[in-house]
């Protein structure tokens, strides 16, 4: 198997980034008319759309919790999102796993006790895949939840980092991801700096772990700045319009 | 119950298996039906079409002279509600009139919100979901949810029933729970010699323990669980060993 050179002798990555450089991030909120909150987010070529409905009357009465809201997440990957066109069944374990991660990430952050007996639905759609789907989903879901006016104690910002050949690098793209580099996705609460989600695959020596994790943490903080700007701009814009 | 054992079954434990016909009742039952004594069948016994009686559970055949009652005592884990028995349950739901209480039986049991000492429409205790309750089964019918009460219906007093505060609850087999209620079983008394504690034993195999600190409670719980298949002497050594290690 021919190995791709992931890091040039000058220390630049395959797409020309430096190791600690994020891809270009584009984000907008309120992109859908029907959803209570929605967001569209691009991490380079990874594109994801998130819609939030709720808190609303729970669909299945049997699942209702008497003291807090239930969070329901559905995650979908468009068949055209990858190089190879492929339809995934709804019960694909990977999709369910991703949905479950997002759900468990937001459960402690969303103030669910304010919305007893109701349901919050988060729908995620990957439109284009170029690595880092989990980080993109979490970031998009955060923005959509805030857009829906749902109470959260903090942002949840996610970022990936990995060990690319001889250095720790941030925000891996698809080529870097798929060539057996160890990759970790970290979701962080920027206010406290605490980690709420962490997923790692492929081998990495314990001694390198701290470096990779702290780099991912730095990435999360950068994400926070970007997301907060989008949210704040939108809030200020709406507030200004209403103040007329 | 042990004190009402008939003479014949005191001599030797009679073990029955599902499908076994009962010899003792066979003779008395085959006689002219008018003169035959009335037999009351308890759990584990079933009359067949040809008027013989068959065991449907594995266990020890028991007999009480009073009322000529026969039943099979088995050591099962699933509880079947029977009126008059004390059980420990967890509140799992609330409606306007009832608490839904999980007593480990096939269905949740109903406990009226007014079935507490001194409860009235104006002033009734409020138990949150998750509360542990010690209650008595007032009504058990195989086609209906069992009904519970937390007071003596004749005197209106609580008689020790009600919510259990603090402590820890664990599940045992029904047989062990029955034995714990038998004053002849020593394990609780042995433990009591070393550590002071409170306990409530439900016939549904739930045992509640409370003591001054968590480590003692853990010790007591584990000692009781361990005691199920130990003789009295072994129990004494086991408890001593545990207490010494503390």
């Amino acid at each position, binding site marked *: 198997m021919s190995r791709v050179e992931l890091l040039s002798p000058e220390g630049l990555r395959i797409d020309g980034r430096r190791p600690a450089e994020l891809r270009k991030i584009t984000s907008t909120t309120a992109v859908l008319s029907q959803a209570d909150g929605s967001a569209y987010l691009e991490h380079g070529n990874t594109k994801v759309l998130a819609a939030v409905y709720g808190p609303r009357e729970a669909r299945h009465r*049997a699942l209702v919790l008497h003291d807090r809201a239930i969070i329901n997440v559905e995650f979908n990957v468009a068949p055209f999102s990858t190089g190879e066109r492929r339809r995934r069944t709804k*019960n694909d*374990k*990977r999709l*369910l*796993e991703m949905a*479950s*991660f997002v*759900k*468990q*990430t*937001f*459960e*402690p952050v969303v103030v669910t006790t304010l919305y007893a007996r109701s349901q919050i639905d988060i729908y995620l759609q990957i439109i284009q895949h170029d690595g880092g789907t989990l980080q993109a989903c979490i970031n998009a879901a955060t923005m959509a939840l805030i857009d829906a006016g749902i109470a959260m104690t903090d942002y949840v910002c996610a970022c990936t980092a990995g060990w690319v050949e001889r250095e720790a690098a941030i925000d891996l793209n698809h080529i870097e991801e798929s060539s057996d580099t*160890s990759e*970790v996705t970290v*979701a962080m*609460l920027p206010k*406290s*700096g*605490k*980690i*709420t*989600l*962490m*997923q*790692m*695959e*492929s*081998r*990495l*020596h*314990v*001694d390198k*772990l*701290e470096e990779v*994790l*702290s780099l991912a*943490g730095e990435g999360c903080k950068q994400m926070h700045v970007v997301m907060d700007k989008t949210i704040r701009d939108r809030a200020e814009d709406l507030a200004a319009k209403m103040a007329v | 119950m042990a004190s009402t054992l008939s003479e014949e079954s005191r001599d030797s434990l009679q073990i029955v298996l599902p499908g076994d016909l009962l010899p003792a009742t066979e003779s008395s039952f085959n006689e002219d039906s008018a003169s035959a004594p009335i037999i009351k069948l308890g759990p584990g016994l079933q009359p067949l079409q040809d008027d013989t009686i068959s065991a449907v559970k594995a266990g020890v055949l028991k007999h009480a002279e009073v009322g000529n009652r026969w039943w099979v005592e088995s050591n099962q884990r699933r509880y079947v509600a029977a009126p008059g028995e004390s059980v420990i349950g*967890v509140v*799992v739901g609330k409606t306007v009139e009832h608490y839904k209480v*999980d007593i480990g039986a096939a269905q949740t049991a109903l406990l009226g919100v007014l079935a507490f000492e001194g409860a009235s429409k104006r002033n009734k205790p409020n138990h*949150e979901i*998750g*509360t*542990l309750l010690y209650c008595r089964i007032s009504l058990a019918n195989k086609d209906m949810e069992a009904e519970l009460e937390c007071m003596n219906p004749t005197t209106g007093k609580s008689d020790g029933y009600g919510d*259990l505060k*603090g*402590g*820890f*609850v664990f599940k045992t087999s029904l047989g062990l729970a029955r034995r714990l209620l038998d004053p002849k079983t020593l394990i609780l008394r042995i433990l009591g010699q070393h550590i002071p504690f409170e306990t409530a034993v439900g016939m549904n195999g739930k045992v*509640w323990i409370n003591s001054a*600190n*968590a*480590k003692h*409670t*853990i*010790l007591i*719980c*584990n000692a009781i669980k361990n005691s199920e298949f130990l003789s009295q002497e072994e129990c004494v050594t086991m408890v001593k060993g545990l207490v010494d290690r503390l």
Partner: protein
Amino acid sequence: MREAEPSTNEREFVLAALKEGARIDGRKFYDFRTLRLSFGSDYGAVEVQLGNTRVLAKVSCEVIRPFPDKPTEGFLTFNTELSPMASSAFEVGRQTDEEVLVSRLIEKAMRRSRALDTEGLCIVAGEKVWSIRVDIHFLDHDGNLVDAACIAAITALLHFRRPDVTVVGEDVTIHTLEQRNPVPLSIHHIPICISFAFFDNGERVLVDPTYLEEQIKEGDMTLTLNVHKEVCAMSKAGGIPMELDQILQCTKIAVVKVTELTALIQEALEADAKKRQVSRK
């Protein structure tokens, strides 16, 4: 059916006991329950008992055609099902979040970490490769299914022997177990999962939680490591937020635990191998 939640008393007692430094089964915070491994008469059948949790793993193999884009790669598949046998909370047919997470964790721990040399499973490139299938059955659920399943899976793979093969030109002969001694799989390293449960805002960390502890926990994390101190997989799926230091502390605990467990597994395998030798004589 939704599983019955533990009563308030149990919840509060467990938390109070943890504050006093005690667990309800008398263990220390970082203690595993007693691990018992028993092997079946066949190669690759292992039953793991971790306290009351019981998991059975069985490895089987067959010869199939490889994917055209990976002609020399063999297959390694895991099949996990949380059957209603293990707990009254499980149902047939419906995939729960827990089931998805457990099976994905095992898959990530074993496959993504390349514990098994899948290229070594090739018989004739592009034509015939071995497909190794690990069936994991959960028999009794008293918490920490992941660790037990992971131990079961890797031990079963270590214990497994596949039939020997000779290739002469185009002809492939698969020898029965009577004809030739079967050969073991080539395993690169032994990944071991260590699960943690967090209480008290992450202040208290437990290893190998029981079912009751799992119901009460505020968050959890599973680390997969091998004796070479390599992290093979790491999974903290939401739950309470933790400091980075707390997570790194967990990896340190895990490194120790992995060494202990690997030793136990190897001891058990050696004992079984000896037994087999004796019985053959």
